């Protein structure tokens, strides 16, 4: 896999993003604003998943670096997403280190997370998911799974790009993303749940 053969996963606006990056590299300020608007949502979502409330601050740090090093970047729109995610991740890790990493969800919170939320029902497919709950669920995943899921789904990176951001083998990232999503699916009562009965409280993850 990934021997240069796996096509890149293109997102909406990747083409537009690539063009805007090129113009910004030539000095076009408004193009840079476009770049920001396209990239920031995914970046913020990713950062919220790994640093929680301080995501906006970390994102601002990341954008300083992105703005400064813009000229160094080489690649297309999808590559830009990977490059900016890497920068954001480094800033996030620095941030966590400064704070001496906050502990993950406590045991009590875990029980809470297992309860069906107001948006979930046993028999219906979950139609929407609040940001709050989504974050809770994702942050309840093992860190490698959380990051893999966030990079793949929220930032929209393909397998090889996500692996590069994380500094791991593509296979490991693939597995982590798969497991993370499976677990989330179970928690959300979405496809993948094998038991037909009502969800049990404190269901093992």
């Amino acid at each position, binding site marked *: 896999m990934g021997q240069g053969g796996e096509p890149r996963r293109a997102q909406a606006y990747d083409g537009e993003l690539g063009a805007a990056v090129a113009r910004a590299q030539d000095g076009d300020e408004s193009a840079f604003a476009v770049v920001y608007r396209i990239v920031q949502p995914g970046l913020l979502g990713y950062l919220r998943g790994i640093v929680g409330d301080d995501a906006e601050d970390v994102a601002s740090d990341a954008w300083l670096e992105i*703005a400064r090093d*813009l000229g160094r970047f080489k690649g297309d729109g999808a590559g830009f997403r990977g490059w900016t995610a890497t920068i954001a991740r480094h800033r996030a890790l620095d941030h966590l280190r400064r704070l001496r990493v906050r502990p993950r969800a406590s045991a009590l919170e875990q029980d809470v997370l297992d309860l069906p939320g107001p948006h979930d029902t046993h028999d219906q497919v979950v139609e929407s998911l609040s940001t709050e709950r989504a974050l809770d669920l994702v942050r309840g995943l093992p860190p490698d799974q959380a990051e893999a899921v966030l990079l793949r789904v929220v930032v929209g990176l393909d*397998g090889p790009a996500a692996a590069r951001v994380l500094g791991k083998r593509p296979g490991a990232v693939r597995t982590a993303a798969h497991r993370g999503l499976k677990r989330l699916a179970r928690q959300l009562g979405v496809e993948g749940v094998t038991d037909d009965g009502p969800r049990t409280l404190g269901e093992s993850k």
Partner: protein
Amino acid sequence: MGERTSGGGDAHRRHAHPARCAPDTDGHPQVEALLTRALRHPDVAPERERQAVAAFRAAREAGAHRARTRRRDDWRPRAQRHTVRSLRATLSVVLASLALGGVAVAAIGSSGSSQGSADDGAPRTPSASAPDDRRAGPAPTVTSGTSAGQDRPPSAQDTEAQCRAYDQVAGRGKALDATAWQRLLAAAGGEENVTAYCAAHTASATPAPENSRGGGGGQDKSGEGADPAAGTTGDAGNGNAGNTEGGGDTGAAGDTATVGSTGNNGRPEPEKTPDAKGGEQ
């Protein structure tokens, strides 16, 4: 990975692209859509955007955008980057295999040449490693002890080799005069007895190959072993070319011929040595 249909249909999500492989997240499109909608929002704070643009301006003015691309900044599609990497990888593999091949060839060559000197080819007259001994034939017989060039006392391996060589050279008068022949003759008690002696001897030695690989090399019966080219048959896979050649070799010249002998072209075969020697019996 097959075509992945985007279950979410979210405009902000990826385009459905026919050529694209399904991502590893295949199978959970609903979860992905939910997560995306829940977590991916436009930034509601305009001041952050302003700050970012200001930083961009400052960097531009400072000429930071002329900086070079570091490895970590190169995110071009893998096809472009991959070519260079694969070329390098290919070259390194080719060079590595050539190097290994070269070593192997050299190994064969060196052992072959030492064999060659000891025992030349068809009429493999068992003789001392010194080439002239061989050719000389008649003369050296006198210098028995030393001419062999070996200080080793004749051993069963030697006999083995001698007998084998005898078959090769039977009838070729000169060969019979070589020192090793003399030994064989002495041991056998005369020329007419050699055949019987050899028969008895090689028969007893036959099982030896099973005893140890080491012994096997020296005693390869398969085609008289006299053939250096075929030497390898004697000792499969033993990497020890000297060893395999056991063939006709001259017991005298033994080192190369028989397995386990220390003379194995310096190739260390420690475990073989005792076996080879013992295996003969």
